């Protein structure tokens, strides 16, 4: 039996439409018109115990909304989420005992008091026994290096420290499931690395199931065996990372500053299938290695155009999403 079952889940927000000006403001007082925002549109998937799943998509795709429904903050408009075959709707408090949540954008620590107090209160909130607490607390402190600021006020912590603390706080009750909504946003490389290692280690040590949203391709590559891609509230892809990388991984981007004398025709002549984009002062070439010999292209750029400050990128998650979306539209 899957640990998490998401069944035909939808969420529609109603936003009042407000006009400008006094007249229409008074009008909205009496008759409110609403605009429906369908943030999530009938998605379904199952997740097994011990999986690490990357849940990805562009901004506004509906990732956070899904996560919020999966942990009991939001009530679905339609469909349901079952955890251990229990509806999150009907058994919120019971299920909260089994899950830990970190939102990169919002802290759940008690703000004006020393960090250690947050852990103490969570111990009583989740009814963690003394021995379990001791074991967990020391484990997390070592894993995330929290000792040095444990007695500091939370409001005085740096973003990196705060995130690590938030992460530890969400795990103190040994949850079966950990939801991470952009846990590495705004962090420097070192902290990102630490958090990734901690996620891996936790999954190995406690077999914790992790669902993670992120914009950082490296997070996904290092952690996730499976990814679910969502766009405009619908699932575009659900499967392992390997096959999607196989499908799109051969796509490269080259970016270099625009200069006088650059001719699109020259590139097109070399290979029709290179797409050329102008981004502010830069030129971006995208192509698949299946169609283009990278060395030959570089020879043109370096040899003929004498470009020496260019960058080569792998395709990012935004582009994969875009591609998938385009493909989806075509097949319709």
């Amino acid at each position, binding site marked *: 039996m899957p640990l998490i079952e998401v069944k035909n889940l939808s969420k529609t*927000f109603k936003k009042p439409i407000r006009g400008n000006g006094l007249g229409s403001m008074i009008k909205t007082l009496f008759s409110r018109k609403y605009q429906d925002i369908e*943030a999530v549109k009938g998605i379904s998937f199952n997740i097994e115990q011990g999986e690490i799943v990357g849940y990805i998509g562009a*901004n*506004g795709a509906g990732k*956070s*909304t899904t996560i*919020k429904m999966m*942990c*009991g*903050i*939001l*009530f679905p408009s339609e469909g349901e989420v079952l955890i251990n075959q229990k509806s999150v709707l009907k058994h*919120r*408090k*019971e299920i*909260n*005992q089994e*899950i830990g*949540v970190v*939102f990169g*954008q*919002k802290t*759940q620590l*008690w*703000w*004006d*008091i020393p960090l250690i*107090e947050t852990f*103490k*209160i969570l111990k*009583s*909130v*989740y009814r963690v026994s003394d021995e379990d607490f001791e074991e967990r607390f020391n484990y997390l402190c070592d894993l995330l290096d929290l000792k040095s600021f444990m007695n500091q*006020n939370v409001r005085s912590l740096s973003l990196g420290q705060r995130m690590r603390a938030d992460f530890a706080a969400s795990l103190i009750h040994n949850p079966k499931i950990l939801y991470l909504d952009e846990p590495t946003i705004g962090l420097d490389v070192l902290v990102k690395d630490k958090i990734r290692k901690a996620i891996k280690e936790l999954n190995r040590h406690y077999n914790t199931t992790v669902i993670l949203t992120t914009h950082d391709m490296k997070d996904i590559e290092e952690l996730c065996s499976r990814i679910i891609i969502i766009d405009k509230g619908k699932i575009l892809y659900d499967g392992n990372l390997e096959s999607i990388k196989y499908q799109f991984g051969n796509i490269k981007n080259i970016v270099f500053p625009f200069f006088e004398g650059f001719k699109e025709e020259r590139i097109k002549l070399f290979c029709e299938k290179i797409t050329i984009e102008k981004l502010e002062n830069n030129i971006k070439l995208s192509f698949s290695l299946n169609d283009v010999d990278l060395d030959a292209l570089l020879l043109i750029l370096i040899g003929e155009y004498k470009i020496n400050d260019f960058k080569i990128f792998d395709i990012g998650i935004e582009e994969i999403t875009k591609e998938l979306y385009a493909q989806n539209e075509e097949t319709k």
Partner: protein
Amino acid sequence: MRYLKLYFTYAKLSLMSKLSYKSNTIIGIIAFLFTEITSILTLFLIVSQVPSLDGWNMYEIGLLYGITNLAIGLDHLFTDKLWSVAYFEVRNGTMDSFFLRPLPVLFQTIACEIQLEAFGEILTAIFMIIFCSMNLNLVISFGNVLLLVVGIIGASLLITSFKIIIAGLAFVFKRTGAYLQIVYNFAMYSKYPLNIFPRIIRFIFSFIIPLGLCIYYPVSNILNPSLNPYLLSILIIAITAIMLCLSIFIWTKCAKRYESTGS
């Protein structure tokens, strides 16, 4: 029992964070003390010009005022967070973490803040009660004192119930602070003897917002016994319990509409 213990844990943290802004808290208490003292002085000034307000003398009015303020202060001390729920917590989506803990949302909302400013009200209220009692011939009996205590707690819980209902409606309407303000201000009139008001207001205070029932009648009774204190106590307990259950029910229903915020 578990909830009581948890309540104290939450309260301790709230006090700790209040104390990390010591000067703010002290200024808050002093500000409330000042407001209270000025309004009491105004009251005495007015009452001393009019020798008798519908049969109530200055000290009797002072006693009623003090007792009402004690009830108001108690509610203020324990449930101040409901104001910010009504005004902005729901609208700004800052209640997410309450929905993540294995505890009732309402419990966490109330437990997470102790409002020390309320001591401004509570202290002046106690002072008024003692001062006025010393100048009055109170009919102190077990029944009358019990009725008074039940009345104060009942009135306090009634105010809380109304706050819970209106703050709960914020889950549906996003922002209900202004409505809460209206009802709250109206409730403040129960500081004055009921029978100086027109009949309609008397009716509201006896039956719709039954604060009058909780305070006016018990105070009248200790001044001039005419009612059975035990029966009245039972009535107050019953009404308060019903209102409290109703408010929790409405809150719980509305909380399902919580929408958080988009990023």
